[in-house]
């Protein structure tokens, strides 16, 4: 069956749907930014988007390339300093949802964006590092993660724990003194995972239209668990696709203009 959308569009739209109008969301660059702004432009116009550059309640008309593009400040309700952002707003417990991605993820949704291969001191590949993620992962009420699924990224053991997910699973977060929920959704280009209630292993709860379990298994570095009832993700609506594509088109024009 021919689809009129890409798997990346499905992922962004599924991530956007997870957000509620009442959320105060700490937004990362790239896919999270597209998903959060799509939510704002469709079903969740009242959502509060916060970028770590200090912009609170921002409503960008184009997606920023960086976490601190002028567009974010121009359209924000207010802009605070970076120490205030991390101390009062994030650490203070004001953020309901943090959005993260990574180069590597394991079955408990621990994330690596620091080093791949070798050792920390002598890495094969040096990645940008954690930025805000270590504290976003523990201070936000819950965490949504979006990542394209592949055996390279979805691994049995990540090379470095940049930000904590459910640790070793079970009550590990609680044992570390955390009261926040950690990763409650992992939205990929193939499916949606949620943590098992007791083991906290990320478990497939919904599969995107046209995707098979074989595809999911083939793109995951661990033996994937499926919920007893697995739903089919509703396909993108015409409106969701229109708004997302317009947002990307506006963004491309805006960034291209500056060449």
């Amino acid at each position, binding site marked *: 069956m021919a689809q009129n959308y890409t798997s990346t569009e499905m992922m962004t739209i599924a991530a956007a749907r997870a957000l509620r109008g009442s959320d105060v969301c700490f937004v990362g660059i790239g896919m999270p930014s597209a998903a959060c702004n799509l939510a704002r432009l469709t079903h969740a116009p009242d959502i509060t988007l916060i970028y*770590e*550059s200090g912009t609170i309640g921002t409503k960008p008309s184009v997606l920023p*390339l*960086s976490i*601190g593009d002028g567009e974010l400040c121009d359209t924000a309700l207010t802009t605070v*300093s970076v*120490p205030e952002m991390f*101390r009062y707003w994030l650490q203070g417990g004001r953020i309901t949802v943090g959005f993260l991605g990574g180069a590597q993820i394991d079955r408990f949704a621990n994330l690596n964006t620091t080093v791949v291969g070798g050792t920390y001191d002598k890495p094969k590949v*040096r990645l940008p590092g954690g930025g805000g993620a270590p504290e976003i992962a523990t201070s936000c009420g819950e965490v949504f993660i979006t990542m394209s699924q592949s055996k390279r990224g979805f691994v049995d053991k990540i090379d470095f724990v940049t930000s*904590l997910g459910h640790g070793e699973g079970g009550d590990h977060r609680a044992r570390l003194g955390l009261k926040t929920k950690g990763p409650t959704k992992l939205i990929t280009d193939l499916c949606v995972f949620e943590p098992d209630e007791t083991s906290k292993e990320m478990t497939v709860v919904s599969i995107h239209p046209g995707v098979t379990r074989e595809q999911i298994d083939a793109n995951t570095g661990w033996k994937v668990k499926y919920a007893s009832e697995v739903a089919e993700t509703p396909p993108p609506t015409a409106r969701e696709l229109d708004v997302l594509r317009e947002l990307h088109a506006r963004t491309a024009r805006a960034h291209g203009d500056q060449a």
Partner: protein
Amino acid sequence: MPQFVSLAAAVESAIRDGDTVAMEGFTHLIPHAAGHEVIRQGKKRLTLVRMTPDLIYDQLIGMGCAEKLVFSWGGNPGVGSLHRLRDAVENGWPHPLAIEEHSHAALANAYEAGAAGLPCAIFRGYIGAGLAKVNPNIKSIVCPFSGETLAAIPALRPDAAIIHAQKADRAGNILIEGIVGVQKQAVLAAKRSVVTVEEVVEDFGPRSPNAVILPSWTVTAIAVVPGGAHPSYAHGYYKRDNAYYKAWDAIARDRDGFLAWMKANVLESGPQAFAVHARRLAAAE
């Protein structure tokens, strides 16, 4: 009272080989022109501190100015890797680079602690995070009141801070608007400071009573460098040059290409080149 001087004189007076230097600006107002001047003056063995190293430190590292980097996110925002930083960490080119890696929350707190004259920053952080195992400067402290274990890292007290701001007035007070980042904290935490500005005005004019202003007596030297934040931006003056950030990926990927670019655009150039970019990207009135 700060002195209004040339960019070359400002950098010469404030930065010495071996210094710990923080060039701050969170995406916005990154002092690129001053970074180029540090490269032209061939400063060596610097410990560079910056939350997001960005292109400015990619250039300084690739040109061999840095001995150590203290940072929290070392990428080209929205584009990918900083190739000079990676080459230094992965291959020791042009020479080995020591790194001290933190999270954003940690460095933001450390600047604030430095500005506050405290020896360390205390915050709820690094819980379950791998950095706590590889960075010996990440320790913990128990709250004497609640018993909660909190993260502690040393305050940042740089020898010098370098920032870019929109305006100075004739008396040398500095006005910063928009995404204000950690610049105020960095200047107040540092022993010496250099501020480059878009322009000097007689008077700041109507403004919010809560505008971010660094009084003249907190600043060591001021240099007027229009466009001095390019390819970053100056709110109200010019836009971020996102196309330039994307183009940097190819320039920095290859050692020879990088060196040739630096020779043409930095070593054989000067602060006046920045004004051209600023005019090209001027914010629409």
